[in-house]
Every structure is written in C-alpha cells, then in structure tokens.
C-alpha cells in the first residue's frame, strides 16, 4: 500500500512535468495552430537558465594556495566566488545555494523574450503553411538551440542542486517518505497551471484568446487584433515550458538533449488529452505519469515483461481508438 501511494506521488511528479510542457504545446497549437517541435527545446533552455545563473553566481577569482597542489603538481588555484567575497561567505553561500529558485525570476523574462523572438521572427511566417513545414522548421530550430547550448555547456549533465533547506526527504505518513524538492515541484506546477487557467478564465485578454481558440475567424471579424495576443500567448507558453525546466533541474541534472526526451512524450500527452483542450492536456499529463509509475513496478513487469517500456504508447493507442478526440477534446475541434 505504501508503495502504491509513493508510486502515485511519483506519477504526479512526472505528470507535473508532462502537464506543464503539454500545456504550453496545447496553448500554441490551440491558439496558433502550430505544431511546435521546438517546445522541448524551450523546456531545456529553461533548465539551462538555472545552470547559467548558477555559473554566473559562481564566477570566481583565483587565489593561489601554495600548501596544496593540482593534478600536474603545480600550486593549487583556489576559486572564491565574487558573490561570497561581496556578501560574505554566509550570505553569498546562501545566494548560491538558492540559485535554482532565484532562476525563476531570471527565467520568466528570458523565456518570454525568447518566445516573442521565435514567434515574431519565425513562427509567424508559418501560420498558413502545412503542418509538415511547421514540423520541419521547428525541428530545425530545436536542433540549432540544442547545439548552441551544447557548444557552451557540453554534452554531459550538469547538476543544479536544490537549496539545502529543500533537499532531503519529508515523512508524509508512517512509512511514506518523499523527497522534499519533488513535493515542491508538484506544488509549483499546480500553481503555474492554476495561474494559467485563472489568467485565461478571468481576464478579458484570456477570454479573447479562448474565443480565438474556439473560432479564430469570428474573433478576427470582430476587429480584435488577435495576432498581438497570439504573440503574447507564445511568450506565455515558452515561459511555462521554461519554468517547468528551471525547477526540473534538481530532480534530474539538465543536459542539452533533455528537451528531445520530453518532446515525443508531450505530444502523446497532448493528443491523449485532446488536441486544443487545456484541461485535457493537464489531465492526460498526470494520468500518463501515474500509469508510467505503476507500470514500472516489479510486480507489473513480472506480469507483462517490457510493459514499462511501452505503457505510454499503448495507452495512447487505446485511447485514440476508443475515444478519437482524446480524453477531453471537443467534437469537431482539430479532428
């Protein structure tokens, strides 16, 4: 039983990442009708925002410690971050320790800017083009973004640890322990998802966008400049993906191709949830996360060997055959 509860927690946690990425994908697909293969790359760039900030905070000056030697036998150069020398080791250390949460503040404007540039510079020319062309151009963009990150940070994963206070495990109940940061990640993603929904629900801006998702032409006929809002939506979607990435760093060390690992899965999530349905994307994200966790339990694998490898795809196939519109897709929308 305890194991089952832990697996549900794991599922919710995985699902958080799926849901956040799928949410952004659906926003872009639903509002702009663009199949964005670069969305995984946005998630990756988000994660590297915290790597960048960590590196920035760790910018150091070198002092020579003659008592120790480096690997070549020369006197060891000891590095001290500027931050520590400015704010004192204690305060400076704390700032570095909290670099991942701090990166949220840094990532939001960066990701929105990247989203704006992408939309205005590239995507906007592809609204009227076939999906295949959109796939090719965004896939090309994803490769380019990946390679740029790889050129700066290499191919190996880079640790972005959680703050000391938020690492370790929490005991939730008798016999159920769970990593603190994963709980933080889940709460964070619920908050972000809630924020996006509230924004779309309670602001006029959101209303127009929702109307645009339902029927683009009519909204256009009302004389509302939907384009500007769509640009902003792209920025918002990028920011959501970026935030998902920033906070994901402490769970798994970021590397340059982490976006591609999530890309295919998040497309499956979007389709299972129902193309163009935001609640569907979130629901499907959590659902697939939980199913994936259950499928990786020994008891299940012993029953059906290899099920942990294919569960997500299997579920996707079944759902699409039984419920063609996905879990929450509306009839006639993106069918």
């Amino acid at each position: 039983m305890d194991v089952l509860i832990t697996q549900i927690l794991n599922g919710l946690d995985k699902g958080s990442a799926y849901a956040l990425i799928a949410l952004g994908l659906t926003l872009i697909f639903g509002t702009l009708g663009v199949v964005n293969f670069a969305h995984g790359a946005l998630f990756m760039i988000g994660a590297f925002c915290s790597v960048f900030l960590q590196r920035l905070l760790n910018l150091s000056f070198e002092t020579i410690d003659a008592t120790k030697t480096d690997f070549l036998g020369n006197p060891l150069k000891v590095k001290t971050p500027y931050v520590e020398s400015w704010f004192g080791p204690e305060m400076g250390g704390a700032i570095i320790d909290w670099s991942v949460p701090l990166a949220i503040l840094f990532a939001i404007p960066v990701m929105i800017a990247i989203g704006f540039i992408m939309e205005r510079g590239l995507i906007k020319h592809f609204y009227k083009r076939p999906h295949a062309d959109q796939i090719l151009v965004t896939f090309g963009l994803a490769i380019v973004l990946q390679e740029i990150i790889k050129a700066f940070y290499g191919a190996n994963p880079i640790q972005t640890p959680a703050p000391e206070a938020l690492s370790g495990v929490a005991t939730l109940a008798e016999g159920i322990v769970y990593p603190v940061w994963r709980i933080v990640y889940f709460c964070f993603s619920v908050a972000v998802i809630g924020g996006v929904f509230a924004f779309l629900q309670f602001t006029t801006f959101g209303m127009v966008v929702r109307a645009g998702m339902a029927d683009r032409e009519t909204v256009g006929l009302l004389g509302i400049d939907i384009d500007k809002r769509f640009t902003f939506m792209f920025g918002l979607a990028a920011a959501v993906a970026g935030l998902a990435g920033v906070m994901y760093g402490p769970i798994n060390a970021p590397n340059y191709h982490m976006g591609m690992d999530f890309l295919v899965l998040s497309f499956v999530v979007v389709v299972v949830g129902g193309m163009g349905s935001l609640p569907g994307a979130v629901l499907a994200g959590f659902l697939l996360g939980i199913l994936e966790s259950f499928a990786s339990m020994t008891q299940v694998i012993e029953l059906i060997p290899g099920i942990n490898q294919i569960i997500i795809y299997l579920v996707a196939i079944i759902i699409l055959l039984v419920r063609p519109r996905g879990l929450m897709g509306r009839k006639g929308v993106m069918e």
Partner: protein
Amino acid sequence: MSKTNLTRRGVLKSGAVAGAGVALPTIFTAQSAAAYTNEPTGGSVTLGFNVPQTGPYADEGADELRAYELAVEHLNGGGDGGMMNTFSSKALKGNGILGKKVEYVTGDTQTKSDAARASAKSMIEKDGAVMITGGSSSGVAIAVQGLCQEAGVIFMAGLTHSNDTTGKDKKANGFRHFFNGYMSGAALAPVLKGLYGDDRKAYHLTADYTWGWTQQESIAAATEALGWETVNNVLTPLAATDFSSYIAPVLNSGADVLVLNHYGGNMVNSLTNAVQFGLREKIVNNKDFEIVVPLFSRLMARGAGANIKNIVGSTNWHWSLQDEGSQAFVRSFGTKYGFPPSQAAHTCYVQTLLYADACERAGTFNPCGVAEALEGFEFDGMGNGKTLYRAEDHQCFKDVLVVKGKENPTSEFDLLEVVEVTPASQVTYSPDHPMFAGGQLGSCNPGA
C-alpha cells in the same frame, strides 16, 4: 600524387587525404593487388578515430579525440613522448609507424551502431584507414568490431565494458584494452565485503540492454559468492530519465544495498534520484544503506555532483595513479589541454600506442601480422601495471581500480579516490568462462 597548388605546409597538413591518395582505397576490391586492406604505400599511414561527437556521450568522445591527437603527436615525435618513454616495449622511435608519418581521420558514431558502422566504412573505403579505434559504448564497439573483421582492418576498441565484446561477440581483428563487467565484479566484491560485510541484501537496477545485463550478471555472481543475497533485479528502460518509480520500491524492499548497473546519463539520473529519496541516510537491517555504482566514470561523476561522495565503484584508470606511466600521460595531456584525462582518454591513447608498437614489432601493417604481435603480448608502463593481451579472446588483463567518491574534492577534477588496486590475477578468468561463452574468435582477416 595530386598536383594542387597548395603550399608545402598545406600538403603536409592535408597529409591524411594525401596519404589516402597514394594508398588507393582498394578496400573490398576483389581485383586488388594489395596484400591487405588499405596497405599504406606512400609516406604516411592513416588511422581512423571513430568517436561519439553528437549525442549523450559527446563529451567522452571529445576527450577520446584529444587523447588520439596526443597519441599521434607522440608517435610522430612531437611533444614530450608521453607514455612512449615508460612503455616496456621500446619498438616505437617517434618517427611515425614503420617510418611512415601517422595521419588520422575522425568520424561521428552518434552512439548508434548504424551510424558508427557508416562512419567506420567511410574511413576504410574513402580515407584508406588501416585501423579503426574509439567508441564509448558496447553496442557500437561490437558493431564496429564486426565491420572491421569483415573489412580486414584492425579494431582497437575504445570504452566498452560489456562482457560480450571479448565474449560471445569477440573477433579476431578486434582488441580490447578496457576492462569488463566480470572484472568489475571480481574487483569490487572483496572490497565491498571489507567495507560492508558479508551479510547484505542487494537490490539491482539494471539498464535494459546487453551491457546492463552482462554487468548485472557479473556483479550479482561476484557478490553472491561472498554471501550477499540479491533481493531483486529491476530492468529500467534506456530512455528513462526519471528513476523515481524504480527507486521508490527499494525503500520498502528490505534491501540494504542498491547496485546501479547504469552508465552515462542513466547513471547520473538514477544516482541523483536515489540520493534524493534519502537512501544514503537510511538504516536498514541495522546497517547503513549503501549505494554501489559498478562502472564509474569521472566525466559522468561530474554530472552527478555531490551525490557521488563515498559511493564505491570500479574504473579502468584514474589520473591520480602514481605510477610512472600514468604520471607521464597525465603530464603531457594536462600540459596540452589544461585538465587531466579521463579513463576513456587513457584507454584510447594506450590502444593507439599498442597498435603502433605491434606494427613495429610485426614489421607490417597487415592485420594478421599485427594481431599476431598483439596476441599474448605482455607489457608494462601504461598505467595499469603489468598487462597481458590474451591471445584466446583479445582481452587485456591488468589491475583494476576500485574507487569511491571523494568526500572533500579539491578541484572539479578531483572527484574519485582510489580505494584499492585489485591485482590482475584476481580479475583473470578462463577464456571458456560461461559468461563469455558462445562466440568464436574466427581467424584474422587481412581483407585481400
């Protein structure tokens, strides 16, 4: 010879291609006049360095490439000579191989067997490479080894740890300097017993592909021989990034040791997740819970950050070794690139030197001659003590390092400390050991 208006310096530098121009790519040529594939007939000889340049192992590939460039420099008489000065065989003179200047071509394996073979083929067919080396995974090594056997060139494996490379998939034209899963198990077991006792319950997480299985089999056999119990072995998909759902069941399984048969990104993530779930602070069966990573790599360990502290594993070589050969290598590598070499770099460097030396001793580049010179060759001064290239399976037998994550690293490279150097005799097995059974070496193929 080509007549182009390149300057003298240009001709020298483009020698790789120029060399190939003289040594016509007669590979796979039925009507070939050459005695063997890509027989070098000009003033230079071309080696093919096939390493992952894209994909998750690109950093290891880059380090391998650095080592190869260094090896070529040393072979051609440049630099400080590195391990050539400490190598027990003195056949190499710093004038290339058999008097021919060493040139090289590079390719990208992408860590895919298909792409690796395509890249190796282009080196053999187009550039006239007479030896292929490199790689950072067993699947690629075995695939390229098979190709080299068919094409009639020597393959000097890079980083490959699966038992199969010199086990059921061994080939007469292929040689492995790197250690393997069995050796990891044999080296780790006594150390684990010393550190954690002989009454332990182990839980294995294993990457679900050939390398993972052979390593798990080896480690389980070695630890069970000590009296440990293997509680469970769970196979994890290669594509997995989040291991939480595999780690969580460990908590309540009654196991007190977790063995992570993972490499690369899998290892970084599974270890990070295991630490996240507080496994290291756990006390089970009145014992401290322990994590073991049988195949450690310093480059990867960096990705795992502070999580590797005190975690025990094995490695082929580490730059902190104090023997003459290792020190010489670290000095020349460190001077050239500014940081110490990885185990992948070491094995690739040594393989290149060993190949060159074998050519010198055989007096030919003919794969059959080279293979004969390598088979049963005993040498020293290359970093792992006295080493034997066994004739039966083309596996090197040498000391294996048991290492653990350093508590207080002094620099970003100083992550592992050597716990024990397990002597070669302890990791040697018979060529017909069941874990290595099933394949045939075949006979050497010169290709013509």
